[in-house]
């Protein structure tokens, strides 16, 4: 896992607050890219600290858009649950070798199910809390799925970009 995630963490939160919070296209497209930052945080860190970081991140987002505590609730759930979710989605062999695998080195399938599943859960919980009606649970699921796909696309691009940066550094060092 990335050992210094703070730059990316702060960048994604600022991106969320300044750009993506203003995206409300058709009432459906409202991606929460800051969730990437929470997924990116190393699992090996102290779990209590991770949960407090998750809560503080969500609280900050909530404060920026006056949404009470719904982002804080969804973020805490994401950080809490990713410890369990990784066991279902990532190969046990890989976890045995490295219990805190680098997301950039994961198999595509594992990455998609791990990060995609967490993003879907986070977005669905968030939109369900936002609407707070049983009758809109279906549309919350749909909205969660669509926005999780968008954020997953961005996540995938980010991983490809960091890959290309890494290989460029290696080739520069060689020459």
């Amino acid at each position, binding site marked *: 896992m990335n050992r210094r995630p703070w730059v990316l963490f702060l960048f994604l939160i600022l991106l969320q607050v300044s750009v993506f919070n203003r995206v409300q296209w058709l009432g459906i497209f409202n991606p929460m890219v800051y969730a990437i930052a929470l997924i990116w945080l190393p699992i090996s860190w102290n779990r209590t600290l991770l949960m407090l970081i998750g809560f503080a991140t969500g609280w900050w987002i909530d404060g920026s858009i006056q949404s009470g505590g719904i982002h804080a*609730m969804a973020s805490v759930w994401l950080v809490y649950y990713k410890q369990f979710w990784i066991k279902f989605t990532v190969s046990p062999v890989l976890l045995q070798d490295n219990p805190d695998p680098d997301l950039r080195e994961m198999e595509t399938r594992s990455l998609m199910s791990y990060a995609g599943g967490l993003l879907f859960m986070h977005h669905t919980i968030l939109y369900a809390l936002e609407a707070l009606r049983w009758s809109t649970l279906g549309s919350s699921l749909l909205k969660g799925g669509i926005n999780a796909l968008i954020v997953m696309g961005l996540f995938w691009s980010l991983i490809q970009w960091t890959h290309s940066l890494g290989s460029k550094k290696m080739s520069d060092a060689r020459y």
Partner: protein
Amino acid sequence: MGGLALWLFKYRFLGLLILLEAFGAWMTFSGVQYHHSRLTQFQIETAGNYQKRIHRITRFMGLDEENQRLNQEITSLKQQLSFNNNKADSLSTTSSDVVLQQGLNPQILSSLLWPDSGILLDFAAPARVIYCGQGNQQNYMLLDRGSMHGIRPRMAVIQENKIVGQVQAVSENFARVVPLINTKMRTSALHPKSQTVASLAWDGGSPRYAELLDFPIHIPIKIGDSLVSSSYSAVYPPGLRLGRVDRIEVIPGAVTYKIRVLLTTDYNQLDHVQIIRPTLQVEREKLLPVDKF
């Protein structure tokens, strides 16, 4: 003790999750108007559904008394209709039976309750009481009508010409009413004989009695005098019955009486009520600071 500590240590992350989620929920429900309102609606809807089931069972027990009361009400409405000959154009073609069967017409109800006074209603609907709390300081009632029937907060709830309370919040199918027997409720009361206005409040004791506050000692008042709603209230039209003076105490040195009032509404026997809104209430309230109840 050691076992408990181990157990707590084992589930510390789950405990932290619950704690943080609860804090997030508190921030949401206390800070965001929409979520606060949704929570209130959920509470009313849940309580309403539960109380409606209980009411279906218990209403059979009081069916005889209720039928008797309805018959009396129909008879009195018929008598009032027959006396109102000057309103004949609209009323002669509508018998009181039709009024009761088809729901309430605001114009007809206002002409029955306030003949020739010019007071008009822009909304009137019948409802049934499915729950009426009496054992607490802040009692409330639930009615089986809600926003889908046109009920809105701050509408008045009456039984014939007696004040019951006012609508505080509504869900789709139910309405929560703050009755006179709620310690936070203050109602403007008029003493018609002296044309003096005072405040009627419930002290949290017997649901049959309330207190009339701030009635000046130099104004004559007698036991048995009636009290009605005053024109100061934007929720209740003036002239609705509140109660009768039951006991008057003079406190040495005080400039006001201590007056006990026997309430006209008997909250033990409430079933059918009417929900009304005076014409221009909304416009009037825009100009006045709105009290919570």
